[in-house]
């Protein structure tokens, strides 16, 4: 689900919020309709637990119902909703036992003193289309995303999972554009390396057929 908000959408949503703040309950119904899928997807990608994602979505919808009058329009309404969704998800995750994160540094490319690659790279990138249809692939990807350090994970989920722009992510997380870009890049490097053994095996299996 990709979400790139243009000026018209932003204005239409903020008109809905003003209507709800003015007491029009139907506007709340519409706001809930617009956001529940995004909140669920975001929370699911961070928790990988359908019950947690459902609870978080419900809690966020309740917060929007109770706190919409505190929205002052300093940033886009969508950024405000994403921040509430992230905070609610983190509260949920705090009550869970946490798997230790893998060190990100270990999974970054290694270079010699002249800056040339030292790792042996196998190119497994061809014929990977059918991988997407396998449930196993999704599980492997979810596990790898779970192992990302928090700072990188949230940027990756918002940017590549939710399809938000770099600017939007920087607004939601209150980070500079270079910080968003650097975390996204580190997350992608981590995932490439983490997923490579699985994809390499898939590639070599196909080669044998």
């Amino acid at each position: 689900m990709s979400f790139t908000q243009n000026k018209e959408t932003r204005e239409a949503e903020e008109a809905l919020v003003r209507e709800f703040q003015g007491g029009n309950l139907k506007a709340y119904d519409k706001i809930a309709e617009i956001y529940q899928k995004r909140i669920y997807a975001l929370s699911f990608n961070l928790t990988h637990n359908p019950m947690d994602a459902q609870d978080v979505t419900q809690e966020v919808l309740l917060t929007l119902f109770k706190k919409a009058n505190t929205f002052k329009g300093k940033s886009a309404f969508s950024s405000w909703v994403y921040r509430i969704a992230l905070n609610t998800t983190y509260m949920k995750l705090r009550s869970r036992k946490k798997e230790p994160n893998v060190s990100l540094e270990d999974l970054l490319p290694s270079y010699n003193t002249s800056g040339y690659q030292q790792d042996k790279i196998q190119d497994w990138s061809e014929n990977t289309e059918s991988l997407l249809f396998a449930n196993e692939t999704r599980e492997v990807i979810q596990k790898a995303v779970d192992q990302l350090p928090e700072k990188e994970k949230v940027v990756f989920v918002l940017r590549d999972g939710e399809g938000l722009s770099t600017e939007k992510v920087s607004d939601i997380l209150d980070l500079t554009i270079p910080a968003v870009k650097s975390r996204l890049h580190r997350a992608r490097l981590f995932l490439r390396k983490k997923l490579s053994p699985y994809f390499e095996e898939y590639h070599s299996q196909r080669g044998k057929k």
Partner: protein
Amino acid sequence: MICCKECLDLLSDYLDGDLDAQTSSSLEEHFQDCPPCIAFLNTFKTSTELCRESLSKVEIPEMVQIKLKEFVTQNMRKKE
């Protein structure tokens, strides 16, 4: 010519179309002479695309949508 590290550091910007034409050409020049970086580029691009596809495929189950709809309606009734 730029080295592998400089090239791989800019890979996300390159794929996201955030580099100026001159820097993009420097990367492409490097790729021409460096098979390991080509393999890295291809696998980086593919793993990023597969992850993006996989994460964006999350859908809210119908049953959950129905429950949330009931919840929203209850909230609205309380305020009426």
